[in-house]
């Protein structure tokens, strides 16, 4: 349930305003746009990474803007992709002459609006590449990987792309690495309860007590199937099993791992689950690198969680490990 708001129609605006006020040291608002940009952007000669999507997913998307990660995030209304116009304005504000990568989860609204903005920018001579995040294994079979939607895996794709752009890679290379990161990222999730939009009193969906939804969406979409609620060790087995089924052939046996809470499934619960997840992953012969256990891509106050693997190789690991500083996270990997 969303309890704090003024006029529900002003939610996005109030949110961006408050966010920028809270993080003046790292970000500022893109003038005349519902977008935030790193206070260092634009950087001349650097590829600009622009991410975005609806609001309701914090720290995605605006919490991920900053040094070593995204140059800007374009923010829509709750669960609603931002418009092409806003993407365009944001692109104009942050591109530094070396091209732009758009990256966002694969949802038709986002694809269409970012696509329209890309066409408009290209017509003005700005080289734009789009990398869709398609990590949700529950949303389509492996043969249709490119049709899958993007959920928590967003973070890893953005991180790799942001690190590549930050170290000065040219546009082709940033694009290649972002695509590779997406090819190596898989997520599976479950939901225990739906979320409620500001101003509404009913959740988007309900889960019966003792049941859970498998294959959640991060926009309050119900899962693709319902099953019995599992205790932590079995839930761990389900999630880890689904991801192990899809190990990419060229992976070297090390995974960066994220156990993500969707909003009201809290940290302690995630640690309980992580105990069993990490045991299973290690028992499967994999090495876990820099596990993240917490809230990274949320869905308002939805109850549920997702497990993501980024299958590393040397190239991806270097970019994964590169430092980053954003309002939501200071990324430091001990080696």
């Amino acid at each position: 349930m969303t309890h704090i708001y003024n006029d529900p129609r002003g939610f996005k605006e109030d949110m961006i305003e408050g966010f920028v006020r809270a993080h003046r040291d790292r970000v500022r608002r893109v003038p005349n746009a519902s977008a935030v940009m790193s206070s260092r952007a634009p950087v001349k000669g650097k590829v600009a990474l622009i991410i975005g999507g609806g609001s309701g997913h914090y720290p995605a998307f605006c919490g991920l803007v900053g040094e070593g990660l995204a140059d800007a995030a374009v923010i829509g209304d709750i669960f609603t992709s931002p418009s092409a116009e806003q993407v365009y304005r944001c692109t104009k504000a942050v591109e530094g002459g070396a091209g732009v990568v758009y990256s966002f989860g694969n949802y038709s609204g986002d694809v269409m609006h970012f696509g329209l903005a890309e066409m408009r920018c290209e017509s003005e001579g700005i080289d734009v590449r789009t990398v869709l995040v398609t990590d949700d294994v529950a949303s389509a079979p492996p043969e249709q990987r490119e049709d899958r939607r993007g959920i928590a895996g967003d973070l890893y794709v953005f991180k790799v792309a942001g690190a590549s752009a930050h170290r000065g890679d040219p546009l082709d290379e940033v694009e290649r690495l972002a695509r590779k990161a997406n090819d190596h990222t898989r997520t599976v999730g479950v939901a225990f309860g739906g979320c409620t939009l500001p101003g509404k009193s009913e959740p988007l969906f309900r889960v019966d007590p003792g049941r859970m939804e498998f294959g959640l969406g991060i926009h309050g979409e119900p899962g693709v199937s319902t099953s019995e609620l599992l205790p932590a060790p079995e839930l761990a087995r389900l999630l880890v099993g689904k991801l192990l089924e899809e190990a990419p052939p060229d992976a070297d046996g090390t995974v960066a791992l994220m156990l993500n809470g969707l909003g009201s499934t809290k940290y302690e619960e995630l640690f309980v689950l992580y105990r069993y997840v990490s045991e299973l992953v290690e028992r499967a012969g994999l090495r876990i690198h820099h596990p993240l256990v917490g809230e990274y891509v949320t869905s308002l106050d939805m109850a549920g969680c997702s497990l993501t693997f980024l299958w590393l190789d040397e190239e991806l690991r270097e970019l994964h490990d590169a430092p980053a500083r954003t309002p939501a996270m200071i990324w430091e990997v001990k080696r």
Partner: protein
Amino acid sequence: MSEDGKWVRAALKRALTVLESKEDELGRLDAAAGDGDHGAGMVRGLTAAVEAAVADEPGEALMQAGTAFADAAGGASGAIYGVLLVALGKRLAASGRVDPPQFVQGLRDAIEAIQQLGKAQPGDKTLLDALVPFVEALEEGVRGGQDLRSAWRQALPVAEEAARATAGLVARKGRSSRLGARGLGHPDPGAVSLTYILRAVEPALPA
């Protein structure tokens, strides 16, 4: 048939009034398989469209409306109504006339633009499933010599029946496509809202 663009604003206002009254219903329908924001997005889009459509020339006014709609609504339906209104407006502006055949052609252009943008086919459970048969029925009426509003009125039940029938389709585009067969039984919210709009605007259409 009037070349004056006032009807554009009037039509959009009528659509807005109806969709405001349907906002919650459309939200619930979208929540069944999607993310519940369809009603809110359509209201945001139409509110902005009404405000933006100030040109005297109807084609111009429609383009203004489409641009504003897309920006204010965001989301899949924002993008789609954006290209729909702009394509229709372009055709009317280009022809310099607002006669029934141009109107039909404008809607044909819109369908093409929507398909190009969203890559959906009829049968994929989107608003195209209501829009395409509507435009076909409209064209038939117009070819049969009816004026725009009569032909439109006769095409409305076709769109409405088609929208209802989307309940039996499995979505292949848009958020609800992820649910596969689980989305069966609910009509597509975009198809339903389209029929509300089509019925709402009819009395405001030229002749």
